[in-house]
């Protein structure tokens, strides 16, 4: 089966997000009031797996071994079957 995973990597709460802070300030210069801006990265991974459960397990492993740094990041995975 063919699956597609969207992996979102975010900084853990409480960590400095200087890019987000800079964007927030720029929004304020434009007259918008944003209470906070946080940056995140999204990776879209297409993969073959036996089942959606197996696909999730593989993507979890990818996150733990490479895509996220557990010291500073939280990650979330959104998975769907491709037709």
């Amino acid at each position: 089966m063919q699956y597609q995973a969207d992996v979102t990597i975010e900084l853990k709460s409480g960590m400095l997000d200087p890019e987000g802070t800079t964007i927030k300030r720029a929004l304020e210069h434009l007259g918008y009031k944003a209470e906070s801006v946080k940056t995140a990265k999204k990776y879209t991974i297409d993969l073959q797996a036996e089942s959606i459960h197996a696909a999730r397990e593989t993507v979890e492993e990818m996150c733990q071994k490479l895509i996220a740094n557990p010291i500073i990041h939280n990650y979330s995975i959104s998975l769907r079957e491709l037709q």
Partner: protein
Amino acid sequence: MSIGIVQFGGSNCDLDVLHVLKDVIGVDAELVWYKEENLERFEGIVIPGGFSYGDYLRAGAIAARTPIMTSVKGMAEAGKPVIGICNGFQVLTESGLLEGALTTNNYPKFKCESTLLRVESTDTPFTSKFKKGDVVSIPIAHMEGNFYADELTLSSLEDNAQVVFRYVDKNGKATDEANPNGSQENIAGIVSAKKNVLGMMPHPERASEDILGSKDGIKIFESMVEFISSQ
């Protein structure tokens, strides 16, 4: 004695380190392409600065997972000295050889400037030529040098005297103003629990000759060479 200098695609301080080791200090040193896995001929390793893999994913993340790093880990476990400078420090934290992580500078900009560092520990293979409390001038050049570790890790680094260099002002005080990147506790360099792996954001190879304005950095390489000779 020979010291290996690991080259990844995107390393750019490799030749500077080679020059300091070979021409300034006069020891045998050799560039090692990252595809090589046999490092048995080396007594020490330097992972130089640069932008390995274009800083894709995270600075140092991809380089940390190349096969040569498995060999570097083996050397570190065997007690051989390993230094990671700037991007090399990022590679060492990403590979798990050093604790913590290096995140985006608190002012999110590439910073290239002279910094003053206080030597916090001389009980390492890299700092034996300093005196504790020495304030030395070694420049930085990075965008992701903001050292972060959780509280437990941070206190164990402090308790075990693993913090080796701290950013300070000219009076030797670790102030916020002297901190160029927002690093916790003004940390500029740390060693592993066994003290034979050093990671530091400042570039000692850029402060190793009078013509560069500071020779303070050369003591790090000289300490390493002396340590290797004493083994």
